[in-house]
């Protein structure tokens, strides 16, 4: 493999991984605070992609590619983020909040229910055919010394880096972020310290869902929009979160990028058939669970009586 080919795969892996990372953040933030897997996260991503698609097509109309299409794409992304944030909060309020004191199995089952409702309602309302989200810009690849990069990939990199840095700053530097970290450490103590835990949990769902919406739109540009698009992507993002150590925000970012690279190089370099590309993520999951179940950056948690 030549050096330019290597950089090509590296680039492809990084962009795929950036999307996984954005989605993985939602899993990891919710897990960090509520200690449960939000199975509906992948379906929120799908809803986000649909909203983005409709708003973008509506705003754009017949306009040719240009500044306006670019602006309307970002408006669509913003609308989608806000709507998905609200959707995430609503789901938490209706389907998870009443179960906070129930057995550990209850919220998981409820989440599977929500996931099923979302994906099948989408199939009912929007139909099962896949739709194309058009590029808001001219997607002619640009060549840098043998390495071909599409403007779409640049968009993915720029958007995911901005999102991740903003999130990191938000969690590390703001009052709300501090409240989130406190809640994830110990919910009861946080409550005693005057933190409004309900608000923190709502906020966590809102942020996670908004990031999922962005991930959904970015992935839709390459892979189209359809009602079950969130399932596989969501699963892989979850694997990414586990690899990085679930509950750990930086870990999720790293895990996402690592998984993206593994998938790209697995197919391109190690000759794994494309049909079995989706199984790479699960191989990684089983492996990490066997070797280092707490993930690369996770803390080992002792169960206490």
């Amino acid at each position, binding site marked *: 493999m030549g050096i330019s080919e290597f950089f090509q795969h590296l680039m492809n892996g990084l962009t795929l991984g950036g999307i996984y990372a954005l989605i993985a953040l939602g899993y990891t933030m919710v897990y960090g605070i509520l200690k449960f897997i939000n199975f509906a996260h992948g379906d929120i991503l799908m809803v986000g992609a649909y909203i983005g698609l409709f708003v973008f097509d509506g705003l754009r109309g017949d306009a040719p590619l240009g500044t306006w299409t670019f602006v309307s794409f970002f408006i669509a992304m913003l609308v989608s983020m806000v709507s998905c944030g609200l959707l995430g909060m609503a789901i938490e309020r209706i389907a998870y909040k009443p179960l906070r004191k129930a057995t550990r199995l*209850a919220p998981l*089952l*409820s989440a*599977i*229910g929500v996931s099923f409702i979302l994906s099948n309602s989408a199939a009912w309302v929007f139909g099962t055919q896949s739709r194309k989200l058009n590029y808001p810009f001219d997607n002619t690849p640009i060549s840098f010394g043998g390495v071909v990069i599409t403007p779409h990939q640049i968009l993915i990199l720029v958007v995911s880096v901005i999102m991740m840095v903003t999130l990191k700053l938000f969690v590390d530097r703001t009052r709300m972020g501090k409240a989130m970290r406190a809640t994830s450490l110990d919910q009861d103590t946080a409550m005693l310290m005057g933190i409004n835990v309900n608000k923190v949990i709502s906020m966590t769902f809102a942020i996670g869902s908004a990031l999922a919406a962005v991930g959904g739109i970015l992935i839709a540009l390459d892979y189209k929009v359809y009602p079950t698009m969130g399932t596989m992507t969501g699963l892989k993002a*979850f694997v990414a979160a586990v690899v990085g150590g679930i509950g750990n925000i930086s870990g999720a970012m790293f895990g996402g990028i690592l998984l993206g690279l593994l998938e790209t190089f697995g197919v391109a370099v190690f000759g794994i058939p494309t049909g079995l590309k989706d199984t790479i993520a*699960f191989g990684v*999951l089983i492996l990490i*669970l066997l070797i280092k179940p707490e993930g690369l950056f996770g803390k080992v948690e002792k169960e206490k009586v």
Partner: protein
Amino acid sequence: MFNFFLLILIYSGIYALMAIGQNVITGYGGMLSLCQAGFFAIGSYATAILATQFGWSFWATLPVAALLSAVFGLLIGLPTLRLKGDYLAIATLGFGEIVRNVLNNWDSLTNGPMGIQKIPMPDLFGFTINPYRKYAFLVMIIIFVIIAYYLFQRLARSRMGRALTAVREDEIAAQSMGINITKYKVYAFVLGAAVAGIAGSLQAVFSLSVTPGTYTFMVSVMVLCMVVLGGMGNFKAAILGAFIIQLISYFPQLTGLSSVIPPQFKQILFGLILVVMMIWRPQGLLGREEHTYGKKHAQKRGSK
């Protein structure tokens, strides 16, 4: 119409077997497994391949189907069951998808998306159990369900059943009482897988063909729904749940409204059932079956 009702009963029976398996895993063991469809598929394909390519009789393929599912249950259970419960859900979900993926792609063995047709009908003492004449088949299914119910009911009252209940209620307490939690969890998982394999085998000889499209994630969620609706930790409830869910899923055809009701109706309803049951009636319609040990016995002795 009556014939259609028989069909629903047969499917209720096949799914009841899977629900019984799910109930051992989820209701007794407290583990969330999402791959009954995967074990179902393995059982179906074991019977289909052995019967069509090697000419085995259905009764010879049945134990192989059960054993093969059990082995896969062991393979997926051993690494994941040592960890916290949530991972099992994801690992099993992934496993179910991988099974379907492999069935779709391994053309030389499974004939890919086309599936396997012309599976021979089962014989019993020279009498062919023809799935088109539904009575005989229904009787066979009912016998299977009764046997499974009886065996698992005994199992639930045995040392293993009690150990599993203890593990579900409190792992740490169970462990400190000397219960090997991983061992019992793996047992439960393997048994649940085996009975799903048997259900798969029956499904293969009922529809006389198998295709990968039958064994989707939806099937796993349906089975889960049956157990949740009926009541976790109660085998009667699992069978009742299987019947109700089958009625719901054939409701549009049964009432002749299939042109009005969207095809997604049942899946949306399954989702709603899971959420609503968890919030308002987590114990299910029938509730958990509480086993009383010795008490009945003592009363009997006292009355004598």
